[in-house]
């Protein structure tokens, strides 16, 4: 079957259609001629009408009358629209001085359903009407009227544009005026009526035959428009929990399940199944309650995890893991307390014995470690006037060990009259070291603390602060702890970069700090020589840096301090402290060995497990 092409919007419609699906214009009578041919065979009258619209010339009246009998219905409608357009244009050109002002009805559109875009289009079209003249206005209106799709809003905009001027309705053509009034009434009705997705007037025939449905739609829309409460923007809507969240709610918060609710068996009164009985009803999801699982997340514990739990429980509650009676438990706990007290007393005595009995001498190492020898040799080569930067970062708990370990080195620097600048990368380091430096200077009458030492205080930022210090020390720590310009004082006046220091002596208990200094000081164009005084526990981790030449030398713990003191051949506290250290370490080793042997003997019958690991 051949399709029909609309002569107005030029779109293809089904051959059975009487009006265009898109512009609602009457379609030509169906024939066997293809649509494309139909357009080519446009009647002369329509061609003339188009020509008239383009040129603005009006054909003679007798010509119209001659062809009126042959005019089909769709062409008559076009002519009717054309006459209305001419009337509107004539009225616009006949208006007086107030013609440039927009009509009074235009602002009222803001209360209607037209959005701002439609209003702008209407207003623009009217102004163009007034400016471009009669024919151009007629052509524009005609094109707009035929090109706009027929929707609820589209119809309103088109009609308002076509019949917008109410003054045009009461002038020349009574019929047009009546149509204009009717159109204005319809439009006002549409504006008052609420928007509905389907225009009731444009419902298809099969749906229009359902009077109940139309009535329901219109009544529902009116009800929504009239009875809808004003919405408070500040008031939040009550939220409904999603189903997955409801399952996580505690049992106490859940009301009896939906299975206990009775579903009414009456016929649906609304919805797509309205009026149909015997249908399967959908479940009311909003009112449905989902019972959460009683044990949704069962904890699965492996035997290894259970063993670790038991071990931890034994450590925290030693008495709870045994099935011994209370007197036996008390006896075992008493034995543990006695053992702890015994160990503490023995360790304390071993540490204090060398100080109480000066005749007690430790085994002195005969070979000096290479790193200590290198450190001593480098310090001896430092020029007397060139300052050394002492960087400090250690915990206060290890201050005792590091004070003993660093004492011979600091005394060596003081005796040689080398200026020193102190900077700390933790908050307490500079205070601890300053006290130690003051003690060292009291033993040397040739040098004064205030002349040789500048305390630069705390450098925050960790590694980042270290980077800034390496990049520009004057900017990183501009003031001393006395809040004076540090770099204008005598010891540091010739120092502009980190490489101007004779060496950087690092005092730390953490090999990570040493690593950071090695890495960051290496960024300088001329990296400063690094020396270190470290805790004994950090010595194995510092040794590789010395072996690779990244640090010139280091002193580790009391044994390193003793070696340095012996190389220097100056008496000091290192010998007595090393004796205490050696005796305490040997005591600890002996206690551990004895404890292990006793344990092996007591548990000899149980044997040793073949499986390795902890």
């Amino acid at each position, binding site marked *: 079957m051949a399709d029909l092409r609309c002569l107005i919007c030029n779109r293809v419609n089904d051959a059975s259609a009487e009006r265009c699906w898109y512009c609602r214009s009457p379609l030509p009578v169906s024939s066997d001629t293809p649509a494309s041919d139909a357009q080519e065979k446009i009647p002369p009258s329509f061609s003339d009408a188009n020509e008239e619209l383009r040129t603005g010339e009006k054909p003679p009246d007798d010509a119209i009358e001659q062809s009126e009998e042959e005019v089909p219905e769709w062409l008559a409608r076009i002519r009717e629209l054309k006459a209305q357009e001419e009337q509107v244009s004539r009225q616009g050109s006949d208006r007086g001085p107030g013609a440039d002002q927009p009509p009074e009805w235009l602002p009222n559109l803001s209360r209607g359903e037209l959005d701002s875009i439609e209003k702008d289009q209407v207003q623009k079209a009217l102004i163009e009407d007034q400016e471009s003249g009669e024919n151009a206005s007629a052509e524009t209106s005609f094109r707009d009227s035929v090109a706009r799709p027929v929707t609820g809003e589209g119809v309103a905009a088109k009609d308002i544009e076509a019949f917008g001027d109410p003054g045009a309705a009461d002038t020349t053509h009574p019929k047009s005026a009546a149509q204009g009034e009717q159109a204005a009434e319809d439009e006002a009705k549409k504006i008052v009526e609420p928007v509905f997705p389907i225009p009731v007037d444009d419902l298809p025939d099969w749906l229009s035959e359902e009077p109940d449905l139309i009535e329901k739609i219109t009544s529902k829309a009116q009800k929504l428009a009239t009875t809808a409460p004003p919405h408070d923007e500040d008031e939040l809507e009550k939220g409904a929990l999603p189903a997955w969240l409801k399952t996580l709610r505690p049992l106490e918060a859940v009301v009896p399940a939906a299975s206990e609710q009775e579903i009414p068996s009456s016929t649906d009164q609304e919805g797509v199944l309205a009026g149909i009985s015997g249908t399967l009803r959908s479940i009311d999801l909003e009112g449905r309650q989902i019972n959460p699982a009683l044990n949704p997340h069962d904890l699965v514990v492996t035997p290894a995890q259970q063993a670790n739990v038991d071990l931890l429980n034994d450590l925290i509650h030693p008495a709870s893991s045994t099935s011994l009676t209370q007197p036996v438990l008390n006896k075992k706990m008493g034995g543990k307390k006695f053992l702890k007290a015994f160990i503490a007393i023995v360790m304390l005595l071993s540490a204090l014995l060398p100080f109480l009995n000066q005749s007690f001498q430790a085994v002195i190492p*005969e070979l000096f470690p290479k790193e200590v020898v290198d450190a001593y040799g480098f310090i001896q080569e430092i020029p007397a006037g060139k300052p050394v930067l002492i960087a400090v970062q250690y915990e206060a*708990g290890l201050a005792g060990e590091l004070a003993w370990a660093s004492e011979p080195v600091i005394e060596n620097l003081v005796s040689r009259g080398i200026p020193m600048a102190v900077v700390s990368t933790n908050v307490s380091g500079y205070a601890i070291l300053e006290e130690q430096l003051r003690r060292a200077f009291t033993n040397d009458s040739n040098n004064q603390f205030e002349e040789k030492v500048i305390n630069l205080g705390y450098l925050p930022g960790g590694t980042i602060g270290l980077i800034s210090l390496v990049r520009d020390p004057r900017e990183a720590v501009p003031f001393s702890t006395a809040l004076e310009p540090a770099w204008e004082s005598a010891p540091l006046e010739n120092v502009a970069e980190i490489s101007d220091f004779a060496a950087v002596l690092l005092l730390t208990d953490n090999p990570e700090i040493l690593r950071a200094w090695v890495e960051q000081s290496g960024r300088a164009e001329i990296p400063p020589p690094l020396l270190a005084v470290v805790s004994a526990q950090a010595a194995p981790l510092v040794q590789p840096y010395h072996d690779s030449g990244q640090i010139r030398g280091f002193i580790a713990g009391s044994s390193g301090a003793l070696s340095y003191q012996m190389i220097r051949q100056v008496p000091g506290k290192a010998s007595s402290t090393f004796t205490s250290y050696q005796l305490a370490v*040997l005591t600890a080793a002996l206690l551990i060995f004895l404890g292990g042997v006793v344990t092996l003997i007591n548990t000899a019958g149980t044997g040793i497990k073949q499986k390795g690991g902890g």
Partner: protein
Amino acid sequence: MRTVNFLIAVVAGLIVLLGYFFPGLELAVIRKPLLDWAVTLSGVAGLVAILNLVFHVHWKRVHDNHPRKLYSAVLILAFLLTVAAGVFLDPASAGFQKLVTRVQVPIESSLMAVLAITLVFASLKILQRHRNWMGFLFFLSVVFFLVLNSGVLAFTAEIPILRDLLSAFHQVPVAGARGMLLGIALGSLVTGIRILTGSEKPYNG
């Protein structure tokens, strides 16, 4: 917001990293303020952490009548006294330094001494808890290296074979430390790459 954090972290990291590899470029102009900001931010972060600890955690304990509110009250009082001392006594003041060296150092040193005794006590029971070959090897290692590092075996310097043997044993901890350092370096490298590529986002909290 996460995208912005990611971009800031990656761009800042790349600028600093490129500054290492191409010192001739004018990246220092950007890198310098970045590092200055980082130092300032770290200082402010420390201050915020301290204030949070004192005025949010411990003050809340005192206010809520916590069973250990007495300790919290002492902590707050000590904090306020230290702050007052730091404000009215400059950091170079001998009084302020003695506040550190006479209070903080003895307390932390005592804790270290207690730790030493606790470790010895725990080592006594090492074979009771871990009665396997690894436990036995650990037990022997502890005893042997305590004796070795105490220096009582200094007489072995006169005996060539024993001297070389003990010198080799001295290198065992160093070898282990080298392995640890290599692991730390590789871990740092991988972590840095993961942060630069956005696989790791520690700044998202």
